[in-house]
């Protein structure tokens, strides 16, 4: 039944092809289009009924005509998966892009991916040390988490993602991460930057890349992340790898989604994005985590650029509702010359509490992190006040907090691209050192027992007694 070729195209609209009723065609089925010049395009059934079938064509509909042959392959989209994916570069539709041979499949995996039974999940609770103080102290990442980077054009989100990919490790474990990298509509230049960096550090051999560049078909972007996640699931749950999935740029993905919606003449939701974008994004982001009885894990780092730096734009907004927090890159800090310019105030890791504390990072981590936040937030607020009334109007406490905000940015946030700080000596001790610039009585978030144990000056004085 899959052999039949139809020449019944009635309409072609944007990336969609409409066919007159054929034999029953299943929803989600894979389609091949045979063009008159002999080339082949791939697509997928979006809507099927007795009269009409709508096919979304991944490579775009250029040069499709009414004589184009359409073949239904009788199956949904599948990716050949095997351990051989590691070290390979594939294109946005899963074909080799590195000149290597085809992937020899151990298994053909459905790329839509079934939902993980929430009861079968395992709570993520292993702290991942990224070596970046802002993340490790304030928005700690755990294995199995999905933590997007909310960035904007012109900001160094790629450097940060790469630094994380390079430095990420579990404290007290030799397990390395396999990186699955998924590019959606990024420029060749950005792509080269990623590949060169992965090559330079030798990480490329430990990575699988799925690449759809800016000049590749836009509709293909809708399947690229699904391929990457299917590969990640296979590696994590069949071969016990710890997989770090980095995908960039989610904004391009959402635009493709909007393009399809518009071509189907669907009722648009906010800013023209389809009403089902939440569910659609959830079906990507939710493919992270750990499951009972399997050793592997999937940790996701989606990168998205907020159009107009607007965090309330539907893309970051809906993402934020699905992901477990976010790392927000700040233009203001970037302009001050601080790298990584992570604004810890709107950043958040929802799984942080499960991954930190005694036996995981350090017993005082939570208190220290709360105190850093509180002090920095108040210090930043005071900057606004100082701009109006000057420093003279501040009391002693406010002056100390104001000064702390500067030190925090300059010494805590700022670090070099190759600086890998350990959580205990590198990050938390540094935090205590900086906090000691504030009088202890103002440090209300810190339990007295931590002050006695870790405060650089209070500690020594109590020991002398």
């Amino acid at each position, binding site marked *: 039944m899959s052999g039949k070729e139809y020449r019944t195209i009635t309409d072609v609209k944007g990336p969609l092809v409409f066919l007159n009723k054929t034999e*029953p*065609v*299943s*929803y*989600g089925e894979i389609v091949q289009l045979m063009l008159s010049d002999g080339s082949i395009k791939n697509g997928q059934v*979006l*809507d*099927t009924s*007795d009269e009409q079938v709508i096919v979304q064509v991944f490579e775009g509909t250029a040069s499709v005509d009414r004589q184009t042959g359409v073949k239904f392959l009788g199956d*949904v989209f599948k990716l050949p998966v095997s351990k051989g994916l590691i070290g390979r570069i594939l294109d946005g539709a899963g074909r080799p892009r590195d000149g290597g041979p085809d992937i020899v499949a151990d298994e053909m995996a459905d790329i*839509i991916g*079934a*939902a*993980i*039974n*929430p*009861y*079968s*999940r*395992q709570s993520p609770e292993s702290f991942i040390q990224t070596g970046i103080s802002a993340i490790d102290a304030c928005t700690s990442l755990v294995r*199995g988490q*999905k933590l997007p980077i909310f960035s904007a054009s012109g900001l160094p989100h790629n450097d940060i993602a790469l630094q994380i990919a390079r430095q990420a490790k579990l404290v007290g474990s030799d397990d390395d991460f396999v990186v699955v990298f998924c590019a959606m509509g990024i420029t060749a230049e950005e792509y080269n930057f990623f590949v060169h960096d992965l090559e330079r550090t030798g990480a490329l051999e430990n990575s699988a890349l799925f690449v759809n560049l800016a000049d590749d078909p836009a509709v293909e972007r809708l399947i690229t992340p699904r391929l990457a996640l299917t590969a990640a699931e296979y590696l994590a*749950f069949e071969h016990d790898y710890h997989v770090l999935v980095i995908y960039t740029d989610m904004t391009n993905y959402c635009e493709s989604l909007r393009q399809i919606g518009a071509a189907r003449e669907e*009722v*648009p*939701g906010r800013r023209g994005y*389809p*009403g089902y974008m*939440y*569910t659609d994004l*959830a079906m990507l982001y*939710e*493919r992270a*985590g750990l*499951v009972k009885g399997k050793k592997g894990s999937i940790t996701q780092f989606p990168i998205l650029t907020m159009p107009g730096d607007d*965090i*309330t*734009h539907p893309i970051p907004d*809906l993402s*934020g*509702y699905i*992901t*477990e*927090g976010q790392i927000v890159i700040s233009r203001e800090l970037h302009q001050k010359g601080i790298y990584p310019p992570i604004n810890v105030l*709107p950043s958040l890791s*929802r*799984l942080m509490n*499960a991954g930190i504390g005694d036996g995981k990072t350090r017993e005082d981590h939570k208190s220290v992190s709360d105190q850093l*936040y*509180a002090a920095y937030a108040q210090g930043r607020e005071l900057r606004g*006040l100082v701009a*109006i*009334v000057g420093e003279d*109007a501040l*009391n002693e406490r406010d002056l100390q907090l104001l000064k702390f905000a500067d030190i925090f940015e300059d010494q805590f946030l700022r670090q070099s691209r190759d600086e890998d700080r350990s959580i205990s000596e590198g990050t938390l001790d540094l935090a205590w050192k900086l906090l000691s610039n504030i009088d202890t*009585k103002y440090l*209300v*978030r810190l*339990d*007295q027992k931590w002050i006695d144990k870790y405060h650089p000056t209070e500690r020594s004085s109590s020991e002398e007694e």
Partner: protein
Amino acid sequence: MSKENGVIYRISGPVVTAVGISPRMYEVVRVGDEGLMGEVIELHGDQSVIQVYEETSGIKPGEPVIRTGQTLSVQLGPGLLTQIYDGIQRPLPKLEETMGVFITRGVDADGLDLERKWDFNAVVKKGDEISSGHVIGKVQETETIEHRVMVPPNVSGKVKSIKSGSFNITETVCELDDGTEIAMMQEWPVRHPRPFVQKYAPDVPLITGQRILDFLFPLAKGGTAGIPGPFGSGKTVTQQQLAKWSDAQIVVYIGCGERGNEMTEVLDEFPHLIDPNTNKPLMNRTVMIANTSNMPVAAREASVYTGITIAEYFRDMGYNVALMADSTSRWAEAMREISSRLEEMPGEEGYPAYLSSRLAEFYERAGRVQTLAGSDGSVSVIGAVSPPGGDISEPVSQGTLRIVKVFWGLDAGLARQRHFPAINWLNSYSLYPQALDQWYRDNIAPDFPEVRTEISTLLQIESELQEIVQLVGSDALPVDQQLTLEVARMIREFFLQQNAFHDVDTFSDLDLQYHMAKAILSFQEEAKKAIAGGAQLEDVVNVPARTDLMRGRFEKGYEDRISDLVSEMNKQIDASMEAN
């Protein structure tokens, strides 16, 4: 019931159109060769539009559609508690057994274990007149909860025979004169509210142990509350705290379209939680419904109805039930998604025009009622709303605010300052205090309402003073206003902030809340006196005993020590006056 068969005509995502059958609205049908579960949501000429609760890829036009004759119902009876369901009452542990960690489709599972035997103790006898809703027997369902087996709807008569003993839930335990057989299990269509005699006014508070909620913005038993909050403002943690600590006997938690990992955290955490009142696992009195954001959207739409029907069932036994729905926005989005697949004319922001009436119908199912059996029961509904961009002018928030009586406004700004629970005390409200004040006077302290008013007035004054401070700095204020700022800060940092992850601080009973509030007022009073007597504000504020008082709340036995700590603080404040 005629069971005619139809065929699929069209498939578009979760919406399937069938021809050849004429089902009733909301009838459950089986779709395709795999028998996927679906519900009829629109009739259109000879076409029936069906929302399918499972993934539809791979299904073809021409496959069969079979009527079941029933509307979407839940199974009610012993075995509900401790269970974890998906949106259409399939037990998730059972699904794991049959299909592994990933949820595939076409698997049917009973909501209740039909085989398990329960010890049924009859409480009526031969010859008794019974009618729908009457308790005929009891089953110790879990260590802490006694399940009261009720006469199913639309059944009444004289008992012909009834037997105690060990039965499964489908076996007949009671027979009526007219031959009607009653088993422990009954079914109820989820979209219909269960009947009751009358609704009472809400005049008993639901105690949650969360200071800002109980003290400033209380919820009554049988009341409704909305928690709108932008993401990252601690909404989920707040709801989990409510589930853990509120004094309802039964908790129904609906995770509707939420994150898998967070749902897991709840699923992992609950079985380990100990109920502070009984020292038994909290799960013993909990039913959970978990439908994560990537599970089929139609089941998400159904999940809130499944949840509230179960809640009403326990209410009818005479229990107080707290129902948490997290989040109703995800539910509304499911409605929007299905509505858009149906090509309905959209209302505001693409939501269907019936959004607000659906929300109202849902919240109206809350209430404290006289049950058919004559006892009191309540369902309190706490619905989370996740407004896009934190903007509560959007339709779901607005539709919710028009209905609920309590608004706990979570604030991302506070969350950023790590002020948790990040509930904004200026824009939150509760319409219940008037109805509840008498209860507080009788049960906690005669001046409880006055103390509350004083505390909230101080916070109000602070916000006005802060505006001045923003302009001129705090040193420019007169000393009494500076003191007010200090007191307000104490309210915020000592009283309103509460650490959900701290063993001791996570729960404060109403007595302790009252004493903490009194301690703050006592500080204010003493400080005023001391300053009038010549003490420096700085010295008064910095007496070490005040820090001890504030830090003390993290230690066990605080409620016993608080009055000593207060008198020590007062002594030191007095001393600061003499020092000058």
